[in-house]
């Protein structure tokens, strides 16, 4: 009668340490920064009137469509950054509060422009897209 000396599962391959040598969030951040800098170089070379980070966004878009692995690498840094994007707006916001005088001086025209284009944009976008989607696939 053979006893059962074989363990029920094999020990994990590659030693006892499942912790990756570099935290995933650092890899993600390095990739995002690298894409931004690549964008900056491209802008510098082509003279496009576009921020380098936006070019980096487009590059990530193109890479992400081809290779899902890139997305998985970027996600650990990208997801928390996007979730707390608002934190990054606090410093410029504080600066704006020091410019309150410009804001108050032109409060009327500014309110008209911002509220007007907000309302017009929202209504136009909603109705146009709804109508266009309906034409493609009637409910």
């Amino acid at each position, binding site marked *: 009668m053979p006893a059962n000396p074989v363990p029920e599962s094999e020990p994990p391959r590659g030693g006892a340490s499942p912790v990756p040598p570099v935290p995933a969030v650092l890899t993600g951040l390095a990739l995002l920064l690298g894409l931004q800098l690549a964008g900056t170089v491209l802008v510098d070379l082509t003279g496009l009137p576009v921020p380098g980070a936006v070019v*980096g966004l487009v590059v990530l*878009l193109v890479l992400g469509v081809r290779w899902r692995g890139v997305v998985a690498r970027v996600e650990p840094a990208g997801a928390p950054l996007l979730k707390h994007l608002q*934190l*990054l707006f606090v410093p410029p916001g504080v600066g704006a509060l020091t410019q309150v005088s410009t804001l108050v001086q032109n409060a009327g*025209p500014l309110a008209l422009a911002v509220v007007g284009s907000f309302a017009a*944009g929202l209504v136009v976008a909603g109705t146009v897209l709804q109508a266009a989607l309906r034409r493609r696939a009637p409910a």
Partner: protein
Amino acid sequence: MNALVHAPGFGLFLTLAAYLGASELHRRLGRPALLAPVLVAMVLVALALELLGIGYEEYLASVSVLTLLLGPATVALALPLLRSGRALLADRGAVLLTLLVTGTVSVAVTVAALEVSGAPDALVLTTLPRSVTTPVALTLGETIGAATTLAVVLTLVSGVLGATVGPWLLDRVRVVDPRARGFAIGMVSHGIGTSRALAESDTAGGWSSAAMVLNALAMTVALPVVARAFS
């Protein structure tokens, strides 16, 4: 006290503490859009700087790491677009049409409102990026010569408007399709509106973040051209 207040890390600590406190308050009050953590934190930090006698330049130097992160955060905006890519491609005609028409109307209304009330050209430049998500609005504002700090406030105002009265206004004009509702909110109210659209449904949220990114890309291309007329 002076040593503490003028320590290099003080501004960053202040900002993080204000943001965390404001977020907790926001959560406990049931997430009212008017008390968005970013607005509360902004006011708290500005008050603290005033009271403690810290100059804005010194504060900016302390929070430079946050400013630095705006770049990678902008690049990361590709992620929500990749997530909803398939649905968008299937309806690309409708999406492009909406993007084009809304962008034109939005810019036209902004320029017309300011021109009619006789505002200076510099103000027009500052108001133009307002529907664009803030990290892009910031860099874009620099490119076209806007007063970036003011541009940020106008951007935040658009976001809060979208989160508060946006759904109500869409009800009034009978936009019921969650895709159209989300897209409309994302186009005019970027990230702050997107978090509100996410509360309506996942579909609305996905289309909203996609609209935010597509609008940012479209405006990045279009605004420098429009801005040339005012500089």
